[in-house]
């Protein structure tokens, strides 16, 4: 085993990253208090839903819960959740679903009400959602991302580490908003049936809009926060301008989505509505995809540099694995191909191996090599010892 790459720092501060449980920091308590406050609001809102439309509320909770898990699984499959400990995602999701939703409701109502008073109810019917939603919701979701960064600033060393937290805050908002819409729509549904509103909302808000909704917008806005945070060498004006630019882009995409653009070209049928949603959503998903791509590449460069310094042993990270360190899709492709060729067990072992390699690099980058990384080194060797015979036997 190699010795630790460095000793306790010159500056005298302990080596490592801060956890997200920081009771001595004001940002932690602000974040927690606002989440708990939102939790009471959300519980009271859904308890009413359970009393009035119990089937919808229960089924909605189940469906949107599974929907969240599908997103979590997608993030996990791409190893994006390796960026932080689980509590970061819990806090981000809870902020989006509870903290942000709590404040978004009165602010959106006030904006729409003001538009009705100052312009007309007809104006609100057409433009209300586009005017109120984007500015309020993007601001509030991003406020949670900023608080999380304040809580444990040194956890955020790459763009990706900020983007994934932003996406999780957006997902939390999206899921609770969808659940709320589902329950409300059931109370005004043109049928007595309580199941149809759930299915209809799952189709329209979940499947046809899910990929280009809040998670995508907050990803884009979070990139500005990441750039601000990770480029202290740049002039402050430029850093603020970049953050505002990304926020403006997220706002603009949200605005276009909520605005009635293109609606005249499509009739009210479900088929045409699906086409409309896809046409309006594709630019958002492309833009969010580009930001993810930039972040993943930067994360790849970061991982390569850490691995080159801290994990030079080729038995721990082989050349082909090294190349794919910063390419989650390629890592996923290798796992899938391994599953097809060598079976499910080989795929599972390869997944664990890749994950342990990432953990080793990240932990070594944080604390240096030593006793703290031994567990991962042993795990990698054990997994490889199990995997190689499987591959060798069938090859």
């Amino acid at each position: 085993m190699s010795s630790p790459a460095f000793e306790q720092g010159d500056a005298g501060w302990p080596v490592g990253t801060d956890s997200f449980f920081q009771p001595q920091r004001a940002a932690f308590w602000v974040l927690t208090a606002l989440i708990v406050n939102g939790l009471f609001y959300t519980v009271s809102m859904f308890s009413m839903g359970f009393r009035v439309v119990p089937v919808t509320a229960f089924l909605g909770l189940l469906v949107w819960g599974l929907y969240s898990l599908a997103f979590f699984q997608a993030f996990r499959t791409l190893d994006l959740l390796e960026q932080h400990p689980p509590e970061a995602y819990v806090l981000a999701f809870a902020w989006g679903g509870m903290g942000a939703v709590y404040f978004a409701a009165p602010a959106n109502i006030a904006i729409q009400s003001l538009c009705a008073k100052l312009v007309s109810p007809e104006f609100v019917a057409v433009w209300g959602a586009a005017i109120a939603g984007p500015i309020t919701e993007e601001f509030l979701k991003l406020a949670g991302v900023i608080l999380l960064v304040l809580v444990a600033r040194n956890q955020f060393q790459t763009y990706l580490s900020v983007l994934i937290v932003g996406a999780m805050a957006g997902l939390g908002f999206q899921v609770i908003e969808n659940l709320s819409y589902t329950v409300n729509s059931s109370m005004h549904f043109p049928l007595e049936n309580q199941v149809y509103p759930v299915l209809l909302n799952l189709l329209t808000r979940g499947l046809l809009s899910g990929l280009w909704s809040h998670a995508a917008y907050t990803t884009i806005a979070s990139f500005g926060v990441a750039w601000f945070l990770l480029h202290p060498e740049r002039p402050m004006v430029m850093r603020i301008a970049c953050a505002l630019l990304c926020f403006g882009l997220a706002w603009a995409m949200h605005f276009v989505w909520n605005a009635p653009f293109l609606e005249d070209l499509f009739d009210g049928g479900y088929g045409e509505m699906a086409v409309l949603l896809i046409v309006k959503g594709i630019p958002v998903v492309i833009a969010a995809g580009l930001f993810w791509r930039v972040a993943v590449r930067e994360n790849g460069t970061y991982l390569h540099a850490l691995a080159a310094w801290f994990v030079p042993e080729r038995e721990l990270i082989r050349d082909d694995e090294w190349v794919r360190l910063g390419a989650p899709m390629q890592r996923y492709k290798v796992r899938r191909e391994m599953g097809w060729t060598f079976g499910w067990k080989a795929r599972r072992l390869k997944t664990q191996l890749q994950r342990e390699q990432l953990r080793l690099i990240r932990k070594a980058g944080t604390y240096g090599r030593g006793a703290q990384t031994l567990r991962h080194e042993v795990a990698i060797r054990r997994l490889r010892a199990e995997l190689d015979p499987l591959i060798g036997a069938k090859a």
Partner: protein
Amino acid sequence: MNEPSRRIPYRTWPGALAVLLAIAVYVGGLTFWDRHTSGSRPLPVGETIDVGQARFIPADGWEMDVSRSKAGKSLMLFKGGHKFLVTTGRWVGGPDGPLIRQQRLMERGQRLSIEGDVSDFVTSWGLQGKTFAYYGSKLAGRFWQVVDLRRKSLVQIDFYGSNDGMDDALTEARRMLDSMDLEAPQ
């Protein structure tokens, strides 16, 4: 890059306070502005107004609350402490409409009590439906519902307010309902 992360203490209260203040100013400011902006709109005396397929003649002195009205879907009128809300929508269910759901919403959601039984009503224009009265700790009201299966439409009229002056306001609400038909141009 090759230096380890260090857990250097730093202050978060200025940033946290700034975020908190930004949220408070944004949400509180909008709410304050909204509350201090009048949403009442006087209605022309004796003229018909419509919401969706429903149209009726407002009683004298009733004004429109623009912030609680949704174009083509709902119309909120108020006079003093009394409200008259007309909501229209699509209905493709049974002839009783969403009456049970409405009662469940009032009883279980809004903690109101239904007074007596549901009864049928017919207006002088021939509008037919069901109605019931309800009350709560601070208000009382009456709910009317008209289901038109042929047009697949639903009209709900909810009148409520404080007990002071309830009888007069209810008389005016009934007069507005009596003037209602479902022939508004779409």
